[in-house]
């Protein structure tokens, strides 16, 4: 089941990439994915290779930046990185926290060959 999840995401990345590449060869795709998105890195890479293998995107590197989940605490002001998906301050344990990162799900840029 989980791989199918990554397949859908890889397909979405491939579709968007193809749209922006506009026919030019793509060497890499930069993606930012937050910890809270529950994407399995290896599964995503596997799905990407599976999907792009026989396509115009064959060989394009999927460069994924996995962004840690960080919360800011309204109580003590600390910024802490979460190891568990529990919305609580790592310093004081307070639960009045706001997420600063970890929700990312963004295709940032693609590198394409320059067409002379």
């Amino acid at each position, binding site marked *: 089941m989980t791989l199918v999840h990554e397949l859908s995401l890889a397909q979405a990345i491939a579709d968007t990439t193809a749209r922006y590449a*506009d026919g030019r060869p793509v060497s890499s795709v930069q993606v930012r994915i937050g910890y809270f998105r529950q994407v399995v890195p290896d599964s995503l890479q596997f799905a990407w290779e599976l999907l792009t293998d026989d396509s115009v995107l064959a060989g394009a590197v999927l460069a994924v930046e996995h962004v840690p989940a960080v919360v800011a605490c309204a109580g003590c002001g600390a910024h802490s990185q979460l190891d568990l998906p529990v919305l609580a301050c790592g310093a004081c344990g307070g639960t009045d926290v706001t997420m600063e990162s970890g929700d990312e799900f963004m295709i940032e840029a693609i590198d394409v060959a320059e067409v002379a």
Partner: protein
Amino acid sequence: MGRFHTHTDGTVHTHHDDGHRHEHRDVGDHRGYTETGTVRVEVLEQLLSENDRVAAENRRTLRDAGVRSVNLMSSPGAGKTTLLRETLRRLGDGLRIGVVEGDIATSIDADRLVDFAHSVSLVNTSAGFGGECHLDAVMVRAGLQDLPLDDLDLVVIENVGNLVCPAEFDVGEDAKVMVFSVTEGEDKPLKYPVMFRSCELVLVNKVDLLPHLDFELDRFLDHLCAVNPAADVMLISARTGEGVDAWCDRLRRARG
């Protein structure tokens, strides 16, 4: 969400995320972006932007028809279809309810509901890529097209049983509701935080089984609260009917 930028040679352009292609391949000098030979093209699109665009369309379609909608999600076997059948039995006289039934391959669930709902539209997700484990906005759009929206008050979208994928895909619903059964284990919110965070209401089902299980309800509720402090909780048993009337009242109030 256009992205306006200027190149060193003074040319400017805007990137769009609405199907617009990057039309300036010969315009401007991009070499400063990366090493010579490749050009970096800014995309800055949400990964599921195409899905989200169609979801917004679905939301508009439903709103224009005056129909409220609920996206019902759970793991396989948590009791979505039984709950839905009991819900339709109770509300069927007063509320005109359409169902979009997502299933990987069969019509078994849809067949169980067809006598109780105003109308049922089956979306077999195997028509998508390799048997999708969730409904996405495009599939729901197709499902909605098969329903007489002008004759309905409420649409319930019964998602494919899965705790991972459905949470990521906005389909245009007003509310995401999760059915969680006490046979599943207290730590599920920590294992599937995306799903539990996405819901405004968690229906804790099969509570009639609690005396026979080691399931600790308080521990589950603590975990749920840790992941999604804003979630409402209702204890129900679709089998005995416990709590189902309260859930139905909530649906009635949500109408219009």
